[in-house]
């Protein structure tokens, strides 16, 4: 995929609503056959960026290119309206037209493209079949379940085979248990149909599971872009490290460098070794982020694995989460969380192992 042609590129997009900048010099790129997730907290500008790409929002500056055609460039005065961009767009609310049947909803894009009726009907039926909507063409949107509506919305967006489809939180309107099956269904459908897609989500699990590449947005800027494993396993910023996964955030003072890659830190007198993640050098005070799944509580006097620091910490509470327990230890003034298979006794001191490459200092 890295060498497939670029189907959508939005570069240096700026957009403000009134005085507040919502997108601040954001660039994204989608290659053929690739699924890109726009991930970020609510209000980070994901929807706005998607709407800019789709021609529904006019950016203040920047450039949008689809394939080889520039569809927006404010320095050249180009602004192709939404209907001229030939994209597929799936709205968060699905936005199915209530006065049209499912078949008419799905076939509308073909009608606009003047596909003859016979061919159109066959094509609509084929698309409905592919998306598991066989036989529902004659129904009206309100006669469908949420999951079916979501499929119709997708069918409507891809029936005229746009080079890219844009999806705004496609799963957020589904019930929690339906969402999990819809997640893998969506990933499968996108890859079997060989689609290129950008989808917006605030759910990190969704982004990591479905996307080939994830763009993390924060306050209208790109915090980090990369493969799901890069984003999860090697966050470059403190925000990225805390946004993804489940982690403890510990304020520390930096005692000194161990090497270019490691630092000796101390949280309220408890010293341990962390790996340096920030590009800038650490000051006297830093923040260490420790993923919960990296921390281990050692049994009795078991030998710790190499490459970590063993700390003697007091446990405050153990929470039962169903498949595991979550323990909260006091580390300096902060809380270090760890998972385990059995409850610990509150107030007792345990030996806790913190790996160097799992403790990220920013």
């Amino acid at each position: 995929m890295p060498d497939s042609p670029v189907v959508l590129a939005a570069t240096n997009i700026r957009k403000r609503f009134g005085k507040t900048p919502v997108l601040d010099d954001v660039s994204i790129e989608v290659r053929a056959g690739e699924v890109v997730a726009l991930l970020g907290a609510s209000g980070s500008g994901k929807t706005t960026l998607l709407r800019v790409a789709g021609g529904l929002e006019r950016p203040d500056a920047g450039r949008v290119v689809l394939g080889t055609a520039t569809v927006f460039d404010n320095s050249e005065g180009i602004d192709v309206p939404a209907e001229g961009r030939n994209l597929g767009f799936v709205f968060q609310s699905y936005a199915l037209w209530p006065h049209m049947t499912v078949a008419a909803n799905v076939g509308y894009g073909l009608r606009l493209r003047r596909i003859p009726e016979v061919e159109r009907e066959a094509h609509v039926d084929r698309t409905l079949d592919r998306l598991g909507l066989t036989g529902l063409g004659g129904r009206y949107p309100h006669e469908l379940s949420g999951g079916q509506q979501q499929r119709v919305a997708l069918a409507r967006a891809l029936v005229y085979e746009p080079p890219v489809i844009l999806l705004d939180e496609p799963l957020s309107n589904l019930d929690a248990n339906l969402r999990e099956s819809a997640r893998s269904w969506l990933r499968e459908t996108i890859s079997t149909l060989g689609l290129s897609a950008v989808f917006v989500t605030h759910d990190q699990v969704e982004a990591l599971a479905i996307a080939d590449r994830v763009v993390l947005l924060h306050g209208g800027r790109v915090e980090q872009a990369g493969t799901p494993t890069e984003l999860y396993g090697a966050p470059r910023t403190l925000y990225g490290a805390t946004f993804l996964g489940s982690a403890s955030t510990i304020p520390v003072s930096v005692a000194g460098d161990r090497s270019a890659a490691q630092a000796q830190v101390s949280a309220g007198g408890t010293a341990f070794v962390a790996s340096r993640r920030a590009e800038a050098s650490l000051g006297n005070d830093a923040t260490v982020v420790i993923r919960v799944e990296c921390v281990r509580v050692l049994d009795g006097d078991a030998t710790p694995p190499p490459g970590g620091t063993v700390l003697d910490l007091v446990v405050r509470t153990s929470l039962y989460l169903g498949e595991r327990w979550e323990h909260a230890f006091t580390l300096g003034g902060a809380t270090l969380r760890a998972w385990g298979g059995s409850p610990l006794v509150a107030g007792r001191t345990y030996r806790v192992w913190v790996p160097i490459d799992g403790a990220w200092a920013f």
Partner: protein
Amino acid sequence: MARSTPTIPRDAWRQATVAVLATIVLGPLLLVAYQSLLNGPFFLESSRLDLGAYRYVIGGAQFWRAFGTSLVVATGMAGIAVPLGATLAFLLVRTDLPGSQWIEPLALVPIFLSPIVVAFGYVVAIGPVGFISLAVKSWIGTVPWDLYGLPALVAIAALTHVPHSCLYVATALRSINPELEEAARTAGAPPWRVAIEVSLPLARPAILYAAALTFLLGFELFGLPLVLGDSAGLLVMTTYLFKLTTLLGVPSYQMMAVVAISIVAVTFPLVLAQRHLLGQAARYATIRGRGLAPRRLRLGAWRWGAFAGVVAWFAVTVALPLGGIVLRSVVRNWGIGVDLGAVLTLDHFRALATYPNLVRGVIDTIAIATIGGAASVALYLAIGLAQHRWTGRGAAAIDFLVLLPRAVPGLIGGLAFLWVILFVPFLRPFRNSLGALWLAYTSVWLAYGLRLISTALLQVGAELEESARTTGASAARVTREITVPLARAGIVGSWLLVLMMFVREYSTGVYLMGPGTEVIGSLIVSLWGAGGLDLIAALSVVNVVIVGVGLSLALRLGVRLHA
């Protein structure tokens, strides 16, 4: 920064709509303003710029007396109608008032009745020789009230404008998240404290808006003071304008223009204030809750008392005048001791059919309301679509332009259009055509109609339109295939409401009336001057019947009765 983008052609027709709108709205008003600065009629070569008319009118005691009366009427009206309307709204929306589903649509009836008809109804019911007055007189020997005076005028104006306040406050009360009230209940507040300390403050912007609206309507009042103030010599601003020619002995264009401009100078700031208040009301209404409707407050012992109060209001405001008209239209004469059976007759309706101008008036009223109303709604729809989801500078211009007609009472609107028709050579042949009247109606009801239309259009979710755009539909096709079909019910409803307003209308046609442009409302105004009570009664009944048909159709179709 000059940019050439493909969005410009899309905006071209929108700009054109703004231009048309500006011409219709500003043209007549500018002509009136210009006329007010002349020393003679605008169509005479010899007229010169001169402030004499202002000096004369504003220096006159009668102008200030009329202004004072208008002020008293408007203030009294707002002072009475708003508290009553808010109470009625609270009773209907938040309490277990018996039959509230029935009362609610009935309570709106006064909005659709022609004030001139209602005023006439009061005259024949409780005027000096009205049915009820005579009955009371034969019983206790005297009539203990005087219909022709300021107190009666204020009271009747207030009672007939209760529904306006009720509507806005009811809407606001419905949009309050019930959880806000429930939270107060669980915190320990008894229901009446919740009403006073939570619900009413939340509805306050709506109440203030209703007060500003009622005050404005009080200033624009014409039919009620024309009929009820007449014999007492009571003049308000509009009736002062109407009587100006009689008062001066000669038609004086510049004086009329000055009075018209003075009225607009008062009403326009009121419209601006209203707009500001509406913005605030909208901010409060966004706290809409999704939960079930809140449990209604139990009135307990007060339940039937409240019911009786509402029924009494309805009896005095609707049943009394309408009953009076209907009865008056079927009796030959009336007096103490007259036997009803002996004087019953349909002669007045038969007589109606023998006057060609009255027959034309009825037919024209129906035509202008149905066909003309549809044409007006089509125009409002065009403007509404131009403004719909448009954030350009022109959209703000439309916003401003539609405010102006709200500040122009129908009487002045009609006068201004008459002058425009006389002023513009190619319009002169239309002087005596319904087209001229239609244009005036369309302009006077522009703000009302546009509000209905934009409400209907905004019911269509933005994403439904955007998804058609991303699917490849041009803006025009989105309008045709998505927006308009989805807003259809709202558009039909707007037509029915505009239809009723056009049937109800009486003041806009007053100056425009001539052979070929008679409508029921303005015929009643001119018959009132001439004293043809039998015919007025028959015409009023016809008018009420047409409104009734429109109203029941609207209710049958489930049209929301407010903009």
